[in-house]
Every structure is written in structure tokens, then in C-alpha cells.
């Protein structure tokens, strides 16, 4: 599956958003996700399918003012 993860096109073995996050080794991390610009809560990742060309954003805490 070719997905655009945080702006980079990657081959990700995943059928759902949860599998994608897990295969990127962020399954246990403190992150929030969006699919094609829409927020997907953690509880909904497993029931959210992904398809070729989907854009995924995986965000984590960072410095801010």
C-alpha cells in the first residue's frame, strides 16, 4: 500500500489506519492521527480503512509558544 505519511510517499503494509500506525512503529506512541485532512480518533483507527494514495498525518507533542 502506497501512503503519503507526514508528507512522504511510503510503502506501508496496512489495510487500516491502526495497522499503518503500528507498522510505522508508532503504535504505542503518544500520537494523534488524521486521514486525508480529517481527524481520526485513536479508538476509530482500527475501523478506518486506508487505500493507495491516502494522506496520513501522525502528530506528536512538540515545543510550542
Amino acid at each position, binding site marked *: 500500500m502506497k501512503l503519503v505519511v507526514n508528507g512522504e510517499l511510503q510503502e506501508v503494509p496496512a489495510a487500516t489506519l491502526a495497522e499503518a500506525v503500528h507498522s510505522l512503529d508508532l503504535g504505542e*506512541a503518544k500520537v*494523534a492521527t488524521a486521514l486525508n*485532512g480529517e*481527524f481520526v480518533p485513536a479508538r476509530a483507527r482500527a475501523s478506518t480503512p486506508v487505500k493507495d494514495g491516502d494522506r496520513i498525518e*501522525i502528530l*506528536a507533542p512538540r*515545543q*510550542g*509558544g
Partner: protein
Amino acid sequence: MLVTSNSVFTLYGVKLHSRLMLGTSQYPSPAILAEAACASGAEILTVSLRRESARLKEGQDFWRLIRDIGARILPNTAGCYSVKEAVTTAHMAREVFGTPWVKLEVIGEADTLQPDPFGLVEAARILSADGFQVFPYTTEDLVVAERLIEAGCSVLMPWGAPIGSGKGLNNVFGLRALRAHFPEVPLIVDAGLGLPSHAAAAMELGYDGVLLNTAVAKAGDPVAMARAFGQALEAGRAAFLAGPMESRDMAAPSTPVVGRAVLT
């Protein structure tokens, strides 16, 4: 107005003792950030959300640092230029940080980083209706402030000057008018402060607190500057409560004129 209590103020039902809210960006090191946060006495730290690298996992390290400091978290929507971006970011932040608080930024112009007041009000309305407790980064514009209150905001955060500029209070008249117009609304000067004297000036106007980042993070000694800001806030607040004298255009002798010797 007689004010007798200085110790506690409240933001969205949360009682706070420190009137300083500190940003967590641009420090020389994580250790200096932690030390500066403690030295400032700030009970609220602002944070953001950014893309997480599976390889570096920087965000996880940062989160452990912030969690260990133990302050209350105010996530921002920095860098958002549209209502949709800001609202989506706020939802993501609520899940990650487990707080309904959000420092709402809808930026309208890249050079000044000034807020887009139209997008700000719209996003504030959407988020407030969805249970968020919104801290809007706004200007000193009175009408926008009215709209933000109507949209559900119980706190207003007008800028002092453009973010990161260190210019201080650019429009003291406007800030004073805002304070007078909203005597009961917590008002925080957010952005543009460069010196502790700027923070003290905001407090002397009767503002409830200040939010700053660059002035501490980019100081030669951030820890010492954080402490200095904390002291300035206390002094400024105490001065406000003490009731500053009215300024005047002409001199007035402070030493009695009566009884002056004639020595000519």
C-alpha cells in the same frame, strides 16, 4: 475599585497562583527549558503538535520532559491559517494531551503573524460548541473581543506586539480600553514581550497574566530571565493593586514649597 486579593486567579474554573504562562520552544536544551520553567514559577506551559518521525520519535522524548515538569498543558494551534486546520489541530491536541484547553491561533498574515479575526471567531465558535475551553490569540480590537466572548470564550489573549518581536506593548491605549471594557474577563497579554518591564507594564494595566516564550528562551541566560519575568509579574501586579498615581503633563514639586528658606 478596591482589590484586596492578589493570590489566586481563575481560568476556566482552574485556580492559579502564577500569572506567567510560558512557551516551551527555542531553548538551548531540554534541560534549560525544564530549569527555566521551574525558575519562572509558571503553572501553565504551551506546547504544539508536529509530525512525528518513526525513526527519531522526538515527540515522545519531549513529552516525557514536559510531563515530568508537571505543569498544566495549554496546546496551541500555531501555524494554522484556516479554520479547518485550526479546528482539526485542536481535536488532535485534545486527544493527545487530554485537555479541553486550546490556545487558538488562526494566523492571517505571515510577516506579522497577526490573527485572522474572522477565522478566529468562527473557529472559536465551533470549538466552544464542541466543549473546548478556548484561549484565543487575538488583537486588542474591542469588537473582535466582543465576538469572541459571544462565541463562547471566557478568556481573551490580546497580543502585545507581533510574535517573537520583543517589542512590548505596542498599543497601550487599546489594551487599556480592552481592560476597561471587560473588567470581569481574564485578560492575558500573549506575544511580543521582550523584557520583564513589558510584563510588569501589562500587569500595571490590570491584566491578569502574560504568555511569553522567546523573551526567555532566547535570553543569554534563560533561567535567570525566567526568574526575572516572574519577579516583574509580581511587582506589576502589586503595583496595580496598590493603585498607581495619575500621570500629568507638568511637574509638581514633591517637596513642600511652604517653609522653603530664602537664601538669596
